């Protein structure tokens, strides 16, 4: 009963000895392989976690946002249009939103200033996101100064700093009372940045959007489905750098593995020749090479995945920070929540192990079926 297991153990022993005889080359191969798996797994984990957060969080976004376009650009919308839109059948609620961007010359970052009517924010007070607090180096109870439209400074008391866990949605937010937003930006009464619409039945949204465009031809309705689709498209497989990073990493690894496998040294050929001359069959040689490949693949795959998991979910993908940060001065430090599924891991397995196996299989098959006499003579 033990014989088949023993045979595999013996071949595994032999495969390990064979790998250790060419220690430098095989260690470097395993190192590069682990690195490829690590980079690909980090990218996939990071992207999937962000997409999942977008899906879970933005499901609470307004059903529809209506903007007004003037000369092709987004312009403030008349709050009075809210009444007309509310009268459309199927519309439950229309909420004018008051928000805008504020460039802070002191630290050179962009902030999102927003009016909050639902929370008791006192006049001349603000609630700020963690990113704003970090960049301005302020705590609750401190005063911050923002330059109003006329260049005069306006002082605000930091009433609350939004929790760290919410940084993915609130890092650059400055929330204040609507009156303060209007004073800061000289935003006229009766205008809003856009209108947030809630519909009774989401399936009626396209009809409601069509009615809004019919009544207000300068309006641009953006449906929640489109918001969600935007985030599905962000970091998409087809998107920009992702293709370049993934494609070049995979291609260079396939070239590396192919080069390694086709460049069977004379010593290896002689070894195969000797093994066959002492009675090993081609299937045994293939099994030996299969074990050598499995040792390298399995070690690299498991190590790469584990390192990527720690990198993305414990260290917030620090290695990607410089690439993601870009020109941002205010960079949100969010800790992503692990989102793993069998599909991702299967994709990773096929993206990494399959190219390696495919690149090494043919040369090994050719070496294993070679005539032992010819192999030893070369």
């Amino acid at each position, binding site marked *: 009963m033990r014989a088949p297991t023993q045979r595999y153990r013996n071949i595994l022993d032999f495969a390990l000895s064979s790998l250790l005889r060419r220690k430098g080359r095989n260690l470097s191969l395993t190192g590069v392989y682990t690195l490829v798996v690590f980079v690909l797994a980090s990218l996939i984990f990071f992207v999937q976690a962000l997409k999942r957060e977008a899906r879970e969080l933005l499901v609470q976004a307004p059903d529809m946002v209506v903007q007004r376009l003037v000369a*092709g650009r987004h312009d403030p919308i008349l709050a009075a249009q809210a009444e007309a839109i509310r009268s459309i059948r199927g519309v439950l609620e229309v909420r004018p939103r008051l928000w805008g961007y504020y460039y802070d010359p002191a630290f050179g970052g962009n902030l999102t200033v927003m009016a909050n009517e639902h929370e008791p924010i006192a006049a001349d007070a603000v609630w700020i996101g963690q990113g704003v607090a970090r960049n301005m180096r302020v705590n609750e109870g401190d005063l911050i100064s923002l330059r109003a439209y006329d260049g005069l400074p306006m002082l605000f008391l930091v009433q609350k700093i939004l929790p760290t866990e919410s940084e993915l949605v609130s890092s650059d937010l400055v929330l204040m009372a609507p009156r303060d937003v209007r004073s800061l930006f000289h935003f006229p009464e009766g205008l809003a940045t856009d209108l947030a619409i809630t519909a009774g039945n989401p399936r009626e949204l396209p009809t409601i959007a069509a009615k809004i465009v019919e009544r207000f031809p300068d309006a641009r309705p*953006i449906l929640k489905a489109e918001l969600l689709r935007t985030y599905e498209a962000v970091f998409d497989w087809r998107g920009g750098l992702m293709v370049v990073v993934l494609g070049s990493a995979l291609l260079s690894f396939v070239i590396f593995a192919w080069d390694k496998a086709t460049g069977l040294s004379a010593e290896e050929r002689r070894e195969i020749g000797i093994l066959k001359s002492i009675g090993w069959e081609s299937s045994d040689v293939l099994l030996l090479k299969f074990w050598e490949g499995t040792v390298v693949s399995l070690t690299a795959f498991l190590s790469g995945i584990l390192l990527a998991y720690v990198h993305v979910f414990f260290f917030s993908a620090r290695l990607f920070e410089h690439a*993601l940060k870009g020109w941002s001065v205010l960079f949100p430090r969010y800790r992503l929540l692990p989102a793993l599924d069998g599909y991702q891991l299967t994709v990773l397995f096929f993206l990494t192990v399959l190219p390696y196996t495919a690149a090494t299989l043919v040369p090994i098959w050719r070496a294993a079926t070679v005539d032992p006499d010819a192999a030893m003579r070369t």
Partner: protein
Amino acid sequence: MAGPSVRKSSIYLSLTGALAVLFLGMLLHAKVQAGRAMNQRESNTALVRSLGLTDLCIFTEARYTRHPAMADRHAAFQDHPMGLDHFPSGSLVAPPTFPSPHARPHPALPQHP
């Protein structure tokens, strides 16, 4: 006298076994964290709902990277004549699909018989 030597395959199988246990631990950790994540996500969804937020705060350098869902159609130099496309966020965001999702169908024209 040297003791019985350990087989190489035993060392390898132990190490791979340890890696496999860590791998299972990773899956378990992700599962446990998913449970804890619900609380964190609930407070965030409450914030999104009460403020009517439309975008995640990932890239803050420009209007169209901060609020990709609310931005004008993607266009270079839209911030400033010297404002080149913000790299690399401009490259990470996929190009818009055509026809644009914001495009609305025109009202149907009467058909000639």
